[in-house]
């Protein structure tokens, strides 16, 4: 049986492989999607201090670390039976909102848009973020880059670091809001 292998799957976070089996007439007999990666967070998180989980589990995905950081931080709230203060909740929400913006630019402009802006038949050398910037122009491309920069700045200012923030603690966050210098 003829097979087509797509390895790796591209423009997404993570590792994947697709195998398509074709019948003699060229129609699809079956398709298999495989995820060939495993790191084992389920095991190696055991024995680590609970309060380190926001910083450990966010290494599951560095494209959306804020989501994992926040989930683990909320789990700590539950574990310690503490309700975050209103200020802490707002700071967490501010960070998460900034993440929401950068993550959408990641998803749209880098991962998905090349298929729509450049078209699915464009050569791989053009069907990507740099091809998108070349096509939509530097003004729009620059605006996207600037949006990412501003929101990374917010994530760092609130959460300590622009990627893999460090501010989540049971019942709140690690830093006092001192306004924007």
């Amino acid at each position, binding site marked *: 049986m003829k097979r087509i292998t797509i390895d790796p799957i*591209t423009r997404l976070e993570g590792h994947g492989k697709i195998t398509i089996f074709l019948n003699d007439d060229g129609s699809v007999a079956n398709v298999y999607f495989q995820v060939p990666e495993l790191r084992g967070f389920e095991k190696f998180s055991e024995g680590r201090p609970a309060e380190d989980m926001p910083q450990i589990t966010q290494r599951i*995905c560095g494209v959306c670390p804020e989501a994992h950081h926040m989930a683990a931080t909320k789990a700590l709230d539950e574990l310690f039976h503490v309700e975050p203060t209103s200020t802490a909740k707002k700071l967490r929400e501010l960070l998460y909102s900034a993440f929401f913006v950068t993550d959408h630019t990641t998803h749209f402009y880098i991962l998905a848009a090349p298929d729509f802006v450049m078209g699915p038949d464009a050569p791989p050398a053009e069907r990507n973020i740099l091809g998108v910037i070349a096509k939509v122009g530097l003004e729009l491309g620059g605006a996207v880059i600037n949006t990412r920069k501003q929101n990374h700045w917010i994530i760092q200012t609130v959460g300590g670091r622009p990627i893999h923030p460090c501010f989540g603690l049971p019942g709140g966050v690690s830093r006092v809001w001192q306004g924007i210098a």
Partner: protein
Amino acid sequence: MAKLKIALYWAASCGGCEIATLAIHEKILKLAEVADIVFWPVGLDFKYADVERMEDNSVDACLFNGAIRNEENEYMAKLLRAKSKIMIAYGSCAYEGCIPGLSNFYNRQLTFDRVYIETPSTENPKKIFPQTKVKVPEGELDIPEFYDTVKTLAQTVDVDYFVPGCPPEERTTWLALEALISGKLPPKGTVISHSVKALCEECPRTREEKKVKKFYRPYEIIPDPEKCLLEQGLLCYGIATRGGCGALCPQANMPCTGCYGPVEGVIDQGAHFLGALSSIIDSNDPEEIQRIIDDIPDPAGTFYRYSLPDSLLRRARIK
């Protein structure tokens, strides 16, 4: 001048290094002027077969992130090494194993048991584990072999440069890219960062005398915002960690966890930290010292948070 050809790859990693590469922001346009990216799974649609077809040494530099966890990671490390004139271990996973390297406290079977049998969300009554080859009605499928031990990139192939950080900060990434673009490359083996010294050198917190009677966990105290965190009893790793990030975590009132790796000349970051700790414990009474040390939960996992595979220990012995 011909444009540089750059390849980027992720092995056992989280994708944070890809976002870190993008986090050079407007400098991306500068990079695009002087370099073509010939392989980058998160951003470009080139496949493994495209890399296999490249001439050896036809890529000027490969920024390789991620640890070597399975057969595919190893294959890609060797393939990209052959295709690239310069191999750069970009980020803590490729450099020293990082968080995925904590897996070296266990082995493949213990990991598989937990992941595929024991986790509460798993239902696997037939106890099926991943197989490298499986027969399906249409033919055979394969997946890469999952190794017992996580390795670093340099334990797998020859590496020219190391870029520290989980992930590398913007300024660190640009320092490495600038060296590539300008052709002014440092000596082989250099860890590319703005500092060769400990993070404390660039930390704005004030240091006085390091005498610790009790260690605290980050949720137990509200630290003084101006004073050294280690002096306040928090296990801040800055004393044994290479600087260059700008001391971001301590400025957010959180201890450094050591992601920039050991300072220049140190082989084992965990042992270095242990040595530093032993000199600051403020007691000569063995029983009191024991009590103070007992306050440190999970010392091995904390001291080797990012560097277990690259340490002298490399892994735990499983009986």
